[in-house]
């Protein structure tokens, strides 16, 4: 039993710099896995590799047992099943919040606006944005934009969601509303991988925490043990700096 997503020996270089240097990771159905570590430790790159936004150089990534890291594989069917939310939201500025959420389902799944209106409205309502559907991104606060970005990814009905430091660009008072969304998703059983600096959140909700350092997972385990009794010196040093 390897679970929903299973990485073995994943490597990725940019030019001469090897950013991911052999990562093994298992994520079970409905689990929330948090990646922690200093900037440049490879968290974001790892997420982009899982979504196939960056082609991996070596190793396997199995989604329901099927290797998606195979060179030359069409990435689009995979991306429909794995959603990603970015630190900088990356909403489409020329579309309203609702249009942002409906574009991909319309073009990729071929569904029409009328059919989408119901489920999309339900998503906006669920995350407290029902009255912001017709607003353009620049009319929304950072926290609202980030929630729209999450809705946009969810509208594709993905099986796994990746979150790349999605609260890092937010004012402190807006972080809570975005974390609430993640809490809700976790409760609903979504399989999630987060790159995050929110240690309190990781400790509270993660099923597994991985400490990345220099492109490898130096240490992983349930938050109770990793946060209170890290076995590695570097993990201890990192945690003492951020906690």
């Amino acid at each position, binding site marked *: 039993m390897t679970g929903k997503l299973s990485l073995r020996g994943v490597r990725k270089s940019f030019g001469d710099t090897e950013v991911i240097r052999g990562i093994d990771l298992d994520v079970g159905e409905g689990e929330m896995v948090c990646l922690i570590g200093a900037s440049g430790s490879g968290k974001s790159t790892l997420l982009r590799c899982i*979504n196939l*936004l960056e082609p991996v150089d070596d190793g396997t990534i199995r989604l329901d047992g099927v290797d998606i890291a195979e060179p030359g594989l069409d*990435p*689009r*069917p995979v*991306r*429909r099943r794995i*959603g*990603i939310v*970015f630190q*900088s939201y*990356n*909403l*489409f*500025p*020329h579309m309203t919040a609702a249009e942002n959420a409906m*574009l*991909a389902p319309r*073009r*990729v799944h071929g569904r029409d606006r009328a059919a989408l209106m119901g489920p999309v409205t339900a998503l906006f309502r669920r995350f407290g944005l029902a009255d912001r559907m017709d607003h353009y991104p620049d009319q929304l606060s950072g926290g609202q934009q980030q929630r729209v970005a999450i809705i*946009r*990814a969810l509208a*594709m009905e993905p099986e796994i969601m990746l979150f790349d430091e999605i609260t890092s660009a937010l004012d402190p008072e807006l972080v809570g509303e975005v974390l609430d969304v993640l809490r809700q998703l976790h409760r609903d059983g979504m399989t999630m991988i987060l790159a995050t600096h929110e240690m309190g959140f990781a400790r509270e909700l993660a099923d597994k925490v991985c400490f990345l350092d220099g492109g490898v997972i130096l240490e992983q385990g349930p938050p109770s043990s990793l946060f209170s009794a890290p076995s590695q010196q570097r993990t201890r040093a990192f945690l003492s700096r951020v906690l």
Partner: protein
Amino acid sequence: MTETHGTVSAAPAVRPTRRATYEARVRRRSTTVAALSTAAVLLAVVVLVPMAPGWEAVKRSFFDAEVFARTFPGLLNAFLLDIAIFAWCAPLIALTGLAIALCRDVRSPALFPLRMFGAVYTDIFRGLPVILVVYLIGFGIPGLGLPRPWNSPYIWGSLALILVYSAYVAEVIRSGIDSIHQSQRSAAASLGLSEADTMRYVVLPQALRNVMPANMNLLIALQKDVALLSFIGPVEIFRQAGVYKSLMANFTPYVGAALIFLAITIPATRYADYLLNRQRRRQR
């Protein structure tokens, strides 16, 4: 709360702040200086130019009120042809320019010839003087002995303008496409959108809006370059002014034509500037 706010915002109206007083003084002084220097320049022009030895002759041949009154309606009428040529060229230029820009952005190796074509096309037509293209196409193609109406200078003259201007428009649109941040493409890709859909729904709408002011400037240039077609036949305003000049042995019709051009191009230029400024403000 409301009351406090009211008194605070009313304060400057009662007594201007030190900065407001200072800025008002600076503003008054610069207005005065600008007015004085403008008056001095105008005075010099009005006094000095008529002192030139040839002024009387120039006045007779360029600023003859009677000739102006007799030729102006005819010039206006001829200008309708300029407008017509402009009106059918502009949309064709927009479409061709867009197509060429997209050619230069294709990534698939099978379409490499298309990409190559786009590059060669823009290199050639941006590298030639417009008048040369008008001559080569306007005289060259009808010279093949085509039957009517295919030997019309309107068709081939317009084609020359379309070829040259669509090369410029293509470059402007391409710069707009390049200006859209890679993260927008990433976001679209992460949702499973195809390259074509990403271009059509995400990149192009933003790119075209960004380059709107630059394209407005090209339209203004096109409006003026329509006059170049007069060299291969069509009696548009520039040619009509030439006819009047020969008829009356007077250059005033050219001044009339210039005024008509300015009546169109100055408002259009101002509008383009306005668009550009509004966009700068929005991007700040």
